[in-house]
């Protein structure tokens, strides 16, 4: 994929201006990434706010009461998006760590570092809302079930990643150590997803699957998907914002920051 940037036109031997080809790797340059992230953040932030408002309206006003669980099922509109986000964010973090280890691009390491706190937050929210949903429906806040336990391990992996990164002073060594932990820990994500199939679990099976018809009312599903897109947009905005701050902290004083007017 190539993208041409009119701001970076250069002269060839004939005196005509030539727009150099910009590849995906061009965005790994801190200056390019910093500018691009700054442009993307407002779009994702506004989308998150608008989608949350629509999702909440649909979830609490339009969607009907569940015939079995009553009103308490409405926790689904944050529980499921938070659980999905916690898993997908971890995979994204492991992906950026792999990119960092292969190509040594420091922006990749920064992206992984920027994703971790938001992923941990959603893992915690998934566990918290799951406990508050479990009490009225299962009769217990917590059981040592495969799905719940593996999600708790996911939270610990996030916290371990953050703790390991901050415990090593040398940035390069910290990035490498944390990247290895993230990649090895990613094996936990398929375990979480398939735990309800592989083991006898108190947790219900997948309500939404690419291969099956949804097991819930259309309005409930629509509200849940809108909330999922909302938390997606929030996660992207928050991670990009944090990545820009991390770039400032790590690259403070470098010439490219002055060139772009920071």
């Amino acid at each position, binding site marked *: 994929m190539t993208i041409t940037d009119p701001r970076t036109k250069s002269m060839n031997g004939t005196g005509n201006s030539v727009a150099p080809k910009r590849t995906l790797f061009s965005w790994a340059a801190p200056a390019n990434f910093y500018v691009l992230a700054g442009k993307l953040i407002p779009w994702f932030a506004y989308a998150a706010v608008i989608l949350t408002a629509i999702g909440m309206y649909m979830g609490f006003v339009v969607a009907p009461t569940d015939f079995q669980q009553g009103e308490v099922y409405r926790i689904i509109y944050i529980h499921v998006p938070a659980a999905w986000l916690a898993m997908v964010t971890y995979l994204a973090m492991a992906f950026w760590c792999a990119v960092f280890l292969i190509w040594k691009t420091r922006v990749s390491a920064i992206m992984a570092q920027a994703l971790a706190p938001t992923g941990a937050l959603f893992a915690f929210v998934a566990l918290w809302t799951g406990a508050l*949903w479990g009490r*009225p429906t299962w009769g217990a806040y917590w059981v040592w079930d495969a799905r719940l336990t593996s999600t708790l391990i996911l939270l610990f992996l996030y916290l371990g990643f953050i703790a390991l990164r901050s415990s090593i002073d040398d940035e390069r060594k910290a990035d490498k150590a944390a990247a290895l932990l993230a990649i090895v820990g990613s094996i936990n994500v398929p375990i979480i997803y398939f735990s309800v199939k592989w083991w006898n679990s108190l947790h219900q099976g997948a309500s939404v699957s690419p291969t099956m018809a949804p097991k819930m009312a259309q309005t409930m599903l629509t509200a849940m998907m809108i909330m999922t897109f909302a938390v997606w947009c929030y996660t992207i905005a928050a991670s990009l914002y944090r990545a820009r701050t991390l770039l400032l902290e790590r690259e403070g004083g470098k010439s490219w920051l002055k060139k772009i007017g920071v």
Partner: protein
Amino acid sequence: MSTHFHFIVASYAVFALAIVIEVTTLILNRRKALNAIDVDNE
């Protein structure tokens, strides 16, 4: 069946609080990083 209203409130309240804490932390950390660059430049 009871509405279990308090469980719903506790779920959404903690979710909202977590988002508020994260956004506040993001903004404060960015200000801190920008201030550190300003001090370096001076």
